[in-house]
């Protein structure tokens, strides 16, 4: 039985949420607070709103090509040379994204839970599951994202619940003890956690009701921004800025404090359940990477390409890299990712408008 390759608006939204939320949420409060101090949650909300606009612009860009994804319209829009360079850069971005996602997740687990397990094994498992999820296609990814989302949501509510144990003075003044340049630097750092929403460019052609896409994108981005903001508020109120900036993964530490009479250590369970969200993120990037190869090599078979790409990336799982170094590298990579996606949306949108207008005039 073939999987029906059509997405509902809900699946579209959840796929975007799944692509956005992965490892970034673990370190986001610290990353934002290092620059913006007590105003960290404000800059997270601000970054979310700015990227909401970028996401809506991307959605508009995708709407000009309702039957194709960037692998199809990339060359048509930018020509064979610039188009191929763009596709290649995009592909490399996806590869780095996958490697970082699985390596950081594996490093977090080996740091906190399975200290003697080689992180390459865990990274390999994430990669293998991502290949499996991507091979099924966009609808398979979306359904996997739905399940992961439902499993993960209660754990995030636990993080927000810790807000009740915090002190409000840690959050005050809301703005005032940090200068504008620090706030902007904080917003830039926080923006990295929003990387991944460009999956909407690839899922748009598979929508049952493309006219509802903007609404799904809007709510997905608002939801993620709200979760990120609340997590940052909770972490700030709970630890205070001095303690928070010294914790590598503060969100996970907050989870470790949540205890019940049945389950004493929620962080271990949450970390295990988190695998689903990580697989959705790396799976979407693998899907995009595979489609981009198809854009560069039109005759390439999707499933075989996805498996080949997965096997190629398996090499990168080898060896142990300290978590701190990985996170530092992720910060640099995040700048490139967000810049690439934002510039692509802003520059290609007017181009798409004129190309679309011209093609319509020519009756194509």
């Amino acid at each position, binding site marked *: *039985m073939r999987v029906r390759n059509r997405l509902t608006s809900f699946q579209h939204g959840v796929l975007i949420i799944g692509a956005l939320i992965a490892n970034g949420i673990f370190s986001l409060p610290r990353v934002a607070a290092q620059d913006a101090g007590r105003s960290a949650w404000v800059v997270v909300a601000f970054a979310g709103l700015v990227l909401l606009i970028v996401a809506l612009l991307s959605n508009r860009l995708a709407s000009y090509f309702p039957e194709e994804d960037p692998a199809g319209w990339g060359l048509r829009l930018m020509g064979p040379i610039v188009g191929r360079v763009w596709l290649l850069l995009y592909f490399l971005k996806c590869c780095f994204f996958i490697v970082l996602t699985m390596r950081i997740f594996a490093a977090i687990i080996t*740091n*906190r*839970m*399975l*200290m*003697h*397990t*080689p992180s390459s*094994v*865990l990274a390999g*498992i994430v990669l*293998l*599951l991502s290949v*499996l999820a991507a*091979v099924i296609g966009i609808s398979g990814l979306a359904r996997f994202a739905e399940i992961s989302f439902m499993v993960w949501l209660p754990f995030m509510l636990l993080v927000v619940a810790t807000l009740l144990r915090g*002190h409000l*003075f*840690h959050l*005050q*003044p809301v703005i*005032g*003890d940090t200068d504008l340049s620090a706030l902007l630097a904080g917003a830039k750092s926080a923006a990295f956690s929003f990387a991944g929403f460009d999956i909407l460019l690839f899922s748009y052609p598979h929508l049952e009701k493309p006219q509802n896409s903007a609404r799904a994108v809007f709510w997905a981005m608002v939801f993620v921004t709200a979760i990120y903001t609340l997590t940052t508020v909770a972490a700030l109120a*709970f*630890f*205070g800025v*001095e*303690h928070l900036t*010294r914790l590598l993964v503060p969100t996970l*530490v907050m989870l*470790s*404090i949540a*205890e019940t009479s049945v389950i*004493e*250590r929620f962080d271990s369970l949450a970390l295990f359940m988190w*695998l689903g969200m990580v697989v959705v993120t790396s799976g979407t990037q693998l899907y995009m990477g595979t489609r981009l190869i198809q854009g560069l090599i039109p005759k390439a078979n999707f499933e075989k390409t996805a498996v080949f790409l997965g096997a190629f990336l398996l090499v990168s799982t080898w060896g142990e890299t300290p978590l701190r170094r990985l996170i530092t590298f992720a910060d640099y990579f995040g700048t490139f990712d967000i810049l690439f996606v934002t510039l692509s949306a802003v520059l290609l949108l007017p181009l798409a408008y004129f190309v679309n207008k011209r093609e319509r005039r020519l009756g194509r």
Partner: protein
Amino acid sequence: MITARRLLVLTLTICSLLMTGCWDALPVEKRIFATAIGLDWVPEQPHLTVTVIHPLMEEKRARENRVLTFRAHSFGEALAMLHHSSGQQLSLGVLSVIVIGRQAAEQPLSSFVNDLMAHPDLRLGAYVLVASGTAQELLAVTPPDHQRIAVHLRDVLHRAVRRSDAPATTLYDFVTHVMTPGADAITALLSPIGTLEHRPPPGQGAEGAGGGGQQAEGGGKNALPSPPPEDVQVVGAALWQGDTMVGELTLPMAQHVFVAMGIADAMLMKVLFAPDERFFPGGSVMTLSIEGARADWSLDLAEGRPHYTLRLDVRLSLHNYAGTVDLSKQENSELFEKIIASTFEQNMLEALQRLVSTGSDALSLGQLVRLKYPAEWDSKGWRDQLKTATFDVQTKVEIRNMGLQLLRLEPVDK
């Protein structure tokens, strides 16, 4: 066919995921699940004495082996010694309490906290408390039958929380207060009694050195028999300045500080009133049940000297009013409320002055300066500035419940 192959791959993946635990598999007999850690300081090198309570040994009731003690230069070194001597791996995942001996608490504890927080398997919800003597003594107390000392200490703190005798300071809360400028930690101060020689002299009761223990005497012939002694009791609160303990409060003083912090709901307070023939003919100690306390702090800074005004709104019930005045009459109850408010103000001022004289900012008063006078805020010089702080307390008391009877129940005409 394709589906079957995918299912096979998926099954293999899940199996391999579950089997990753094999690398980290460690038989339970190779682990030490510490439920309590004690830290003491001795003047001779190496300074630290680390005590670890081992529950598996505890179950065997082999008392001589229950407490593991190591002398070391640092906590990390003590853990390494434990690992080498026993061949077992320490797990702090079920840690209940961290007991810091008084002398150890008076030394800077940053390195201890760092070593502790570096442990990958640490329960951050463990309570931090200070032993009035040594941690070893406190942890060596024989708990009631069928109880473990760590769980028992945690229970004692829980009871104290319910009575609001002492805040149960968790490790993460402690560390946050240690690190935050303009906010310091306050932890429970416990003492062993009953089974050791540290039982307080008769008359002081379980409430420690404050005025609380005098109620039995003040009650005269109506005094109740004193409760059975607890083997561990809360005797007050330890005050910290950063990572060092700088002073302590008696239990009555600590209770007033908790009222000032606005965390005294459902607290029972024994209050010593000035002699008053009309209201307190039989004795001047009364138990008040605080049902709600709202503390509103404001600050003025004049020539770098902070002046705090505390407006307290206290709603309380009388627990053992033994006077003959009819409190149902408005003029009487209003007068009584004023007497209570005035006593509260005096006690509160005394407790606050004692608190700031130690240089500890357990009330997070520095945060008020940081927020209201950001230009004047000097986080490094705050501990000296705090000592110059003055206070004004304005209390409004509302008696919610005077009891079912208006007057004393006693034999009539016989």
